[in-house]
């Protein structure tokens, strides 16, 4: 839903310079032409700019403000893809691939956004080498960010591994009569061996869990005082 169409109408020449926007590579003549092929809108904080599965009608260029791009995971949980600020463009992937939007764009604060006409943008991208190259670069940068994200998602961090090790030890040895203390006494080196990390990291994380009241340490004995929090820390939600 858009509000206050054309309430603000900054000149692309001024805006591109001020924000080092995607279009800042265009010359004065192109920027003037771009001015004629856009409409500008203010989105209030929390307003949806576009939604998943919607059809793209143009390219969004953020003049100022902050935008959140997010999608829903299989469990319905929101997954933030990236945050966008003034000078950046959004919605170009769907536009270029002639596809529907794969994510939602929501204004995190009041934001001024220009919408460049689809046909005009496609024509400009095909006829202007500089812009075409900038678009390639943008897509390549996005791809690299996405790839790095894949790697980090598939890698469990040490904190998660320490929590996981405690769950394995509990499942194997059970609890003592108090129903909380793991019925085995392992040295920090032995726990580190299960985790696959250094003894120092293990000691630091066990101490952190102790401070967060997930576990209670008494020498080699480990008491699980918040099992749910320990399971959540292990991040087994895949």
């Amino acid at each position, binding site marked *: 839903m858009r509000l206050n169409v054309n309430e603000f109408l900054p000149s692309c020449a001024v805006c591109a310079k001020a924000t080092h926007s995607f279009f800042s590579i265009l010359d004065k003549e192109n920027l003037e032409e771009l001015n004629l092929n856009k409409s500008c809108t203010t989105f209030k904080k929390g307003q949806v700019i576009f939604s998943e599965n919607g059809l793209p009608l143009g390219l969004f260029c953020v003049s100022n403000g902050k935008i959140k791009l997010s999608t829903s995971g299989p469990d319905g949980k929101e997954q933030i893809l990236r945050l966008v600020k003034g000078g950046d463009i959004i919605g170009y992937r769907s536009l270029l691939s002639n596809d529907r939007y794969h994510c939602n764009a929501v204004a995190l604060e009041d934001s001024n956004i220009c919408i460049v006409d689809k046909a005009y943008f496609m024509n400009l991208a095909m006829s202007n080498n500089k812009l075409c190259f900038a678009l390639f670069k943008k897509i390549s940068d996005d791809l690299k960010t996405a790839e790095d994200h894949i*790697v980090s998602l598939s890698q469990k961090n040490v904190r998660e591994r320490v929590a996981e090790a405690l769950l394995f030890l509990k499942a194997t040895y059970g609890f003592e009569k108090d129903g909380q203390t793991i019925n085995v006494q392992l040295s920090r080196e032995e726990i580190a061996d299960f985790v696959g990390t250094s003894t120092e990291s293990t000691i630091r994380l066990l101490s952190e869990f102790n401070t967060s009241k997930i576990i209670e340490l008494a020498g080699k004995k480990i008491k699980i005082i918040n099992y749910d929090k320990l399971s959540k820390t292990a991040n087994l939600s*895949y």
Partner: protein
Amino acid sequence: MCTHASTAENSITKIGKKLYPFIAEQFAELYKYNKKDPNSHRLSLLFELIENLQHEFESLKNYEVKLVFPSVQLVFNTKDNPDFTPSVNIHELQILTQKKETLIKLILNEIESETDALKLGKSHPIYTIIFVFNDSFFPEKEAWHKMLGKWNKTCTCFAKATSSLAHQDKLSSYLNHLHGTK
């Protein structure tokens, strides 16, 4: 001894002593090959994913060899002692190992799509890793979990393997003896 003990023993030998060392060998082979390849960005991303896969695989192997397999063996081997109620919760261990296997599957899917995108050619050793996981690791693990699931319902030894508090010291000392811990 429980009649299922020898079946469990065979599976443990097959997975722990044959399949896992074979997979470890394939990872070692792959890293030799890696050194000969040009270090393009996408290839280095692929090898980062492979490192994650190996890390997760080694972690699973560590837990299974040190905790899960000895616990299953213990449950069967103590059938003749009616007073012994193990503290291990096989069902809980199964859930934890299945979670790790799901993560392995997710990483492998990423590796498969990256490998296809890079058009490395079917002779590339990465495909051996993908093949070993898809055609040996996952089917073996599926059979293992199916077997444990069946015993959970039908075997009296497994019924005892809950988180009962009785005789936990015996299990602890047994496992500690196996790992050489105090």
